[in-house]
């Protein structure tokens, strides 16, 4: 088990910069999720840690050692791939045992460790099958067992759940979290799915265009997004963002929205953000602003109300019994303690002093 440190790492392919001057410290035993849309450099970052890509510049450290010049086999990391990366001609047992075989673990001892790893991911009965005889979920378990069969310094997981169906994804997600908790191995996990990031991570690094936009705990990223990108990327349905003017601690937007922000120093164009669950529906005139119902969607545990206020369209989360016809005028109440303000030019978050 070890710390992983990236120091000013850049990866370029010709003129394209995949990862830009990135620094990141993953603490010993930490579950770090790299989250971002496709093409943001998260997988490239992980592959550089694994040794499958070479950084153009910068240092990568695992524990106390700089590993830039080490081949993957000398880095003592284990990796789970999006498309499993199993060995199709080997049985499940041989797949799981391959890292042990390469390390000279023999006979009965190897068998014992294979069985222990297989038992941890509930694969015990399938050891003699070939990968092609397994379902997608079972194949990913084989890949997991192969990763945990030896105790590597670092686990690397590249979107391990994205080829599984929705139901299996939820249960496997919990299993991965439990495994990591049990083994306490430093883990870097790449995903574009914000739910996976929120549920699994100790800390999340939100990435975009080769840069880390915010690195923090899931709570902090959800409650205090550092910029507009993070604010829009995290949360489902996404945070409401309204364009307007900010001066003397008051935000105003066309359509009658006014909100006190407790931020004195800033004036100029700004974006006000508020999450749908922090917007409540009230009778017309009783809220912070009036809006006209655009659509009402029942999700099961709640109702999503989309309402038009001036040019802005806001989503509110209402009680699941709430109903209204489109066109009805309603009031919207914003939770003043949960407002987010962003500078419209820099896109950065503005914090109260």
């Amino acid at each position: 088990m070890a710390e992983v440190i990236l120091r000013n790492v850049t990866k370029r392919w010709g003129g394209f910069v995949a990862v830009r001057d990135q620094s990141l410290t993953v603490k010993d035993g930490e579950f770090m999720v790299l989250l971002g849309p496709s093409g943001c450099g998260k997988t490239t970052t992980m592959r550089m840690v694994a040794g499958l890509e070479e950084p153009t510049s910068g240092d990568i450290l695992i524990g106390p050692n700089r590993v830039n010049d080490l081949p993957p086999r000398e880095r003592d990391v284990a990796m789970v791939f999006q498309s499993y990366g199993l060995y199709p001609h080997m049985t499940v047992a041989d797949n799981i045992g391959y890292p042990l075989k390469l390390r000279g673990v023999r006979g009965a001892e190897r068998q014992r460790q294979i069985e222990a790893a297989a038992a941890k991911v509930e694969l015990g009965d399938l050891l003699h099958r070939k990968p092609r005889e397994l379902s997608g979920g079972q194949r990913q378990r084989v890949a997991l067992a192969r990763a945990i069969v030896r105790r590597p310094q670092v686990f690397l997981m590249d979107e391990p759940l994205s080829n599984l169906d929705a139901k299996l994804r939820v249960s496997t997600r919990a299993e991965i979290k439990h495994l990591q908790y049990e083994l306490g191995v430093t883990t870097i996990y790449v995903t574009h799915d914000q739910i996976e990031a929120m549920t699994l991570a100790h800390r999340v690094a939100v990435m975009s265009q080769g840069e880390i936009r915010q690195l923090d705990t899931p709570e902090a990223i959800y409650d205090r997004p550092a910029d507009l990108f993070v604010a829009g990327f995290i949360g489902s349905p996404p945070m409401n963002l309204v364009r307007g003017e900010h001066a003397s601690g008051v935000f105003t937007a066309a359509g009658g929205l006014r909100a006190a922000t407790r931020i004195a120093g800033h004036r100029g164009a700004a974006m006000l953000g508020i999450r749908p669950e922090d917007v409540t529906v009230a009778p017309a005139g009783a809220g912070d602003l009036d809006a006209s119902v655009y659509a009402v969607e029942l999700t099961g545990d709640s109702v999503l109300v989309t309402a038009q206020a001036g040019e802005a369209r806001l989503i509110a989360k209402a009680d699941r019994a709430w109903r209204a016809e489109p066109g009805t005028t309603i009031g919207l109440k914003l939770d003043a303690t949960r407002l987010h303000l962003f500078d419209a030019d820099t896109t950065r978050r503005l914090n109260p002093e």
Partner: protein
Amino acid sequence: MSPARRRKLLWQAVESAILLGALFLILFPILWMALTAFKRPVDLFGLTFLFTPTLDNFRAIFAHPWNIGHTLLNSFIVAAATVAISVPASTLAAYAFSRFELPFKGALFFTILATQFIPAVVVVLPFYLLFRDLGLLDTVYALIVVNLAIVTPFATWMLKGFLDAVPTESEEAALVDGATRLRVILDVVVPMIWPGVVVTAVFCFILTWNEFLFALILTRDDAVTLPVGITRFRTERGDLWELIAAAGILISIPMFLLASVIQRHFVRGMTGGAVK
């Protein structure tokens, strides 16, 4: 019978006739060779399928002065050695071309193919002089070297096609699991493209087995291979057709066997289950 149906039947009849004609053109010479191989010289030019079969021709070609057994052995040695050297070498070359970023990769790869465009007659004399100076004329070593030069570029191209079709995730998994690059190739890559390796090896074997021009120029007695050996049955007494046919059967048998191997491996895909 409706006109449409009648037209369809007519067309089918024409189709069948064409196919039967083509089949006859291809199979009849083989059948004729097979029959001739078992005929006595007196039956040779009788256009009949009724004759007393004999194994005398096969006995004759294996006996003095023809000693076809030695020729057969030469053919086997040359073909087997060529395959044994060229297939592993081409696998490594094709892997490098398929997976690595190399300077001038495209030009290099094309050059490999370009060597195949040179007509054999252009290089056969330089080869003759070369091997004469090296004292390797009329040895299987010379033939192996020449056949390697013919077969290896071909095998590299063929194997690269198979390698390009295999996803790289399993290889990367093996690298991270602790394997060296060579180990990855042996443990993971080769098993995944095994059908391709077998098919390539078979093609290389057939190419070498049938090679005529170089064998004709570079050998005289000791290292003569079957295709050249057959020409010896054209003697001053005339063409010994019954012996030519018997030797023809010997040449063809490995081809028939290998064709069935190819068929089996072409059908089966080995990569199922590696990735989603």
